């Protein structure tokens, strides 16, 4: 037994932004501009944390002078409500102009340039920008606006006060400290949920998007009583083989089979819209499929490299350099990565959630990626500041501040010297997710898998051990994954149809009647309960 003790500290503010990605930082900037006292918390460091840490190069938006009118189809893009989609297209260009004024280069050689991820027959809506230092600029802007940034703190759970969310509890991931944040409004902006499903890349941290985003926001919202939606509608991506990294729309070559024959996935859509192409070729024995850059001109190659650098793909380019290999002469393989979780907190066009005082933005529900993080981060900041302006301060006596339970849990994990490492527990959840709730789903598989997951879930908090605050963070991430995993199982069992990558062998067809509804999961009496709701 060790004898670790966590000291408790308190922080007060009007608005708490949980997560300092583009969503959390844009929220902090806007809320500060509205006069709110804002604190941003990040479990890494906002300069380079999250999915945008080393850059993005595509920003979805509509610039009428460049693209003309957008076809009606665009109002259906994204998986959230129509009001959210409409709000997104109406606001994205304003954020482009703002970001440009903050020193994020949104123009290429003096002009707005739309390229990459294009769909034949439609205007391109992906603005090519040079975003390698986006996080550095947004951090600077947030500080300038007056927001306080606290790095290396992981938020664990939310605080309730008389039916509203009025703060959160977290811990320092470098020093033995527990922090209680007493605020009037809270914005969740913790990004995606990785590390739930194996990515077929040989290690837990070899993931196409940030491996430290483990659905913490989704998990704490769920535990606080907020519903999560579309959790069973998982997705897949493709990218360079073995070096999992987003950026497939920026590799501008073509795919060829081992005989050099160009692969056309059946119509004119670019092959990266078919992430499973690579896996299917592999399975059929006709693979592998190669990204072939041999037809690219020198000028186009330099253009591609410029944007790959801004898309955080520098290590891949450096790999070729160090191997002494020119990727234009040596086609390299792509692969299909594992399942991911786009669904989550289905916030509305004002970034409100079903819980008063709780707002969400960005990839808490994956829809418009970095541009969505910018637009809805800003809107969340505005909504939360307005809410905070009329809210009463937290009532110490009435509020449920789970200091004792949090302290007990964290200290028990820190003081255990015999037990399971976070890696062991993380592998256990990935295994059950892949085998029982993965690409083959059925009533019998889901039932057996959920039973096993629940057995594990009970044991995990009793056996997890951490040698220090860093490992404690990883342990808490895995605990969150167990909540998200259970919710995914419950939703997958309820959706008795096949849709996208939710493939039920016992219900092999898509049911158009179900298509008008969304599946939500909410905690009732301590258990996740599924509920169908009409799409907004």
């Amino acid at each position, binding site marked *: 037994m060790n004898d670790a003790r966590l000291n408790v500290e308190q922080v007060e503010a009007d608005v708490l932004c949980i997560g300092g990605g583009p969503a959390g930082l844009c929220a902090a900037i806007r809320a500060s501009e509205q006069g709110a006292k804002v604190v941003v918390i990040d479990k*890494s*460091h906002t*300069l*380079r*944390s*999250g999915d945008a*840490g*080393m850059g993005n190069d595509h920003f979805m938006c509509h610039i009428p002078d460049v693209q003309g009118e957008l076809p009606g189809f665009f109002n259906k893009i994204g998986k959230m409500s129509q009001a959210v989609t409409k709000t997104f297209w109406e606001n994205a260009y304003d954020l482009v102009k703002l970001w440009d004024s903050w020193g994020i280069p949104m123009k290429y050689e003096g002009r707005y340039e739309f390229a990459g991820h294009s769909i034949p027959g439609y205007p391109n809506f992906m603005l090519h920008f040079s975003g390698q230092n986006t996080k550095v600029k947004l951090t600077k802007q947030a500080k300038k606006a007056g927001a306080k940034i606290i790095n*290396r703190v992981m938020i664990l759970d939310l605080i309730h006060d008389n039916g509203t969310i009025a703060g959160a509890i977290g811990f320092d*991931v*470098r020093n033995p400290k527990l922090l209680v944040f007493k605020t009037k409004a809270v914005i969740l902006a913790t990004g995606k949920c990785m590390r739930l499903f194996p990515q077929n*890349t*040989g*290690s*837990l*941290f*070899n*993931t196409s998007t*940030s*491996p*430290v985003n483990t659905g913490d926001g989704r998990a704490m919202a769920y535990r606080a009583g907020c519903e999560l939606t579309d959790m069973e509608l998982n997705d897949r991506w493709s990218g*360079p*083989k*073995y*070096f*999992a990294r987003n950026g497939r729309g920026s590799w501008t070559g073509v795919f060829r089979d081992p005989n050099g024959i160009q692969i056309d996935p059946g119509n004119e859509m670019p092959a990266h819209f078919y992430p499973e192409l690579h896996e299917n070729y592999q399975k059929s024995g006709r693979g*592998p499929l*190669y990204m072939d850059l041999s037809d690219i001109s020198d000028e186009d190659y330099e253009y591609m490299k410029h944007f790959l650098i801004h898309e*955080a793909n*520098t*290590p*891949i380019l*450096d*790999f*070729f350099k160090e*191997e002494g*290999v020119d*990727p234009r002469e*040596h*086609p*390299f*393989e792509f692969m299909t990565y594992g399942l991911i979780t786009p669904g989550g907190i289905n916030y509305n066009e004002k970034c409100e959630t079903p819980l008063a005082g709780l707002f969400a933005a960005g990839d808490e529900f994956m829809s418009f990626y970095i541009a969505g993080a910018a637009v809805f981060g800003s809107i969340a900041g505005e909504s939360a500041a307005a809410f905070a302006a009329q809210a009463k301060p937290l009532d110490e006596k009435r509020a449920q501040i789970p200091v004792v339970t949090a302290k007990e849990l964290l200290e028990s994990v820190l003081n255990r010297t015999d037990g399971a490492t976070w890696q062991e527990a993380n592998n256990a959840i990935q295994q059950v997710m892949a085998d029982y709730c993965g690409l083959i789903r059925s009533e019998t598989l889901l039932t057996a898998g959920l039973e096993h997951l629940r057995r594990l879930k009970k044991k995990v908090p009793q056996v997890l051990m951490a040698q*220090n605050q*860093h490992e404690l*963070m*990883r342990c808490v991430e895995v605990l969150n994954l167990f909540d998200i995993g259970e919710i995914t199982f419950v939703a997958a069992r309820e959706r008795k149809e096949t849709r996208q990558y939710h493939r039920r062998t016992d219900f092999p067809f898509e049911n158009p009647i179900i298509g008008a509804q969304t599946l939500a999961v909410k905690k009732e009496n301590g258990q996740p309960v599924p509920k169908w709701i009409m799409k907004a």
Partner: protein
Amino acid sequence: MPAVIDKEKCNACGVCVKICPTDVYYGSKPKEIPVVMYPEECWHCNACVHDCPQDAIHLRIALNMQLVYKS
């Protein structure tokens, strides 16, 4: 070790320790050459390589992450 620090070049400024998103350098002491404590948690994001003012960090791509190309 994915991130390899050249001890000759490093001036112990602490930038890499400050910014690493996965805290691979956890436990490093101020004004000392950083330790690569959790190499298996390196995301290979390149942030430390990019931001190191001394050009002292090299990213060795882990064997299970090496790209597969045609000779």
